């Protein structure tokens, strides 16, 4: 599963002060990727060493699944 790199600007926008919150780490220690957990799918930004999430936005209801009926507008 690809894990997107995260910039320092991204982290600042999320309210993360890397030096304060994750001493010894840099932005290179964070990645953004979809995870399945309690509550369903999330797009998480996680510190890879501690697994701590600095952001968890709800993802698509079925995650990466595309149904055959997706995109068909019956109305």
């Amino acid at each position, binding site marked *: 599963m690809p894990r997107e790199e995260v910039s320092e600007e991204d982290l600042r926008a999320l309210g993360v002060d890397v030096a304060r919150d994750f001493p010894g780490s840099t932005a290179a220690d964070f990645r953004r990727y979809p995870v399945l957990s309690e509550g369903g799918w999330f797009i998480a930004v996680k510190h890879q060493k501690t*697994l701590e999430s600095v952001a968890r936005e709800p993802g698509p209801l079925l995650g990466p699944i595309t149904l055959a009926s997706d995109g068909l507008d019956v109305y």
Partner: protein
Amino acid sequence: MTVSLKDLDDAQFTERYGADRFTATVLSSRMRYIVQHMCTGLLNNAFSLILRDWYDFAATISGPPEQNYPMSSVSNSLAMFLGTMSEAVRNTISEYGPENLRPGDVVICNDPYRAGNHVNDICFIRPVFAGDRLISFVTLRAHQLDMGGVVPAGFSGTKRNVYENGLVIAPTLLYRDDQPIKSAFNLIFDNARYCALLLPDIKTIYANLRLGEQLILESVERYGVEAYLGAIRYSTDVSAEAMRTALAELPDGVYEAEEGIDCDGIDDTIDYRIKVKITKSGPRMELDFSGTSPQARTSINAGILDTKTAVGVALKFLIDPATPFTSGAYRDIDIVLPAGTFISATPPDGAVFLYWESTGPVLLAVFRALEKALGRKAVGGDYGSLNIHNANGVLDDGTPWVTTAQCGGEHGPWGATEAGDADSYSVVYQANNLDPATEAIESELPAVVLRKEYKPDSGGAGTNRGGAAVLKDTLYLTAAEHWSSPLHTKSPSGLGVYGGKSGGLGATWVFHPEDRDVVRRRELLPTTDEVYAGATPVAGMLNPGTKCVDPDGEYFYFASTPVWHTKPHAVFRYLTNGGGGWGNPLERDPERVKKDVRDEYVTVEGAYRDYGVVITGDPVNDPEGLRVDEAATRQRRAELAGR
């Protein structure tokens, strides 16, 4: 900093959960009582064999949309259903629209990609309203005997896509104002076989949803809505905290493992492999399945939600077995799983049916990966495949019959643990089912269960012994079509742990009447090696000459004949894999080995070979006269220890 539930003072607790600690605990317990009561009602009144004899259903309670549908309570039943149910309710109701619900509704969904499991496992979801307020959902997921598709009753690894697999039902209203919606029923009944059995089953399911609703509303009337909703949050928080505590006790690190199944239903050229990389840091865990084989070409696949279940069941087994399995158990666990693998199949080509065959190895991969981290707490592997047998035919008067998961190798051994020897006759770790009674099978089918027994020396040797493999013979009295699905025969699934040995390999054979007619001979099939030469191999690693199990032999492919057609008096023999042992077998008390020889779990030769215990006497004719030769045992164990 997370505050432990036990450290909350009374005021904090009441503020958080809308009730005092005692009330929240009572309501949590009552929710577990409610789902269990729903299951008891279904079990006592179900008509079809898969419900009545197998307990192939589960009940849950979920919270309302504003809580994001937390699953606060699960029944003591089929675990394979439980991990999928929280998403099943969320996905079904979100798509249907909670604003479209009203009291007296039942919504159904059976889509593996939306709701998990397979198409026969319909989710029946009933909203619970307190006045005008939607406060909860009661759900029964129950296997329907047939859901259409090209294989009667569905159990087959040879179906190639969702169209062959069976009827897929998107979120659909089945009852409104407590009245059945005929068009929805007919959608099922015009596509499924055995509708005369399905109808009373569904009415029984509906009645037990109403029971669950009634019991919830009685609770709400007594304790109030806010206390009830608070208890839903409390129940899931208890599970989350228990799992978090258990995770924190595991050593930090990165743990990797592989597991897999033999092949799919097209051919045997592809081994399907699961790769898991588990990263553990403090109270958090991430399981990344990247690198797992692409989805299979037939219906041996599992869906994403089934893999989530397997992860949850594995971790409950290994580190947090004592607390209820709610959706909160996943709070500090993240699963990374790309779509399109054989444990995350996608429509329309990634047909999902034998999903437990693919997610069983997920569980075993977690067991393997964490074995070293767990040390003494490691758990041995089980028999790995349900080895489901599905057959159908007609009686002389033209009446059709079907057998589903009654006459294969569905029950078998577990692995040993620190606590002791393993059970030898259960269902795979992800299931929690009954064993259909022989009398029930023989009273309803033209089949005779000739033999259910343990195979000596098949359980993994260890300080605590793995469960013994089960050998089962079934005689079919009419001509029949058979689908056989043993999917884990190439390598042992009964993983040995903490120095224990792995269990033996299983296999399947059919004995055609022209080769050996047990009815005409009026004898059981022997279990000696000579008998297999006349058998037709169905699956397993076998010596091509003797047809006996041989780990270094040739693989015989279960779908080399996709449908096994037999004449009257054919016998299918299933041998399961053996369970894994725990601990060094040379440290097993010789008296325990002697008892195993007496009970025919281990032979005299096996005791010498695997345990270094020298036993004298005749286990068949004088079992109480067996003795341990202590001097010879010390010498033999010293030899083995020196190797």
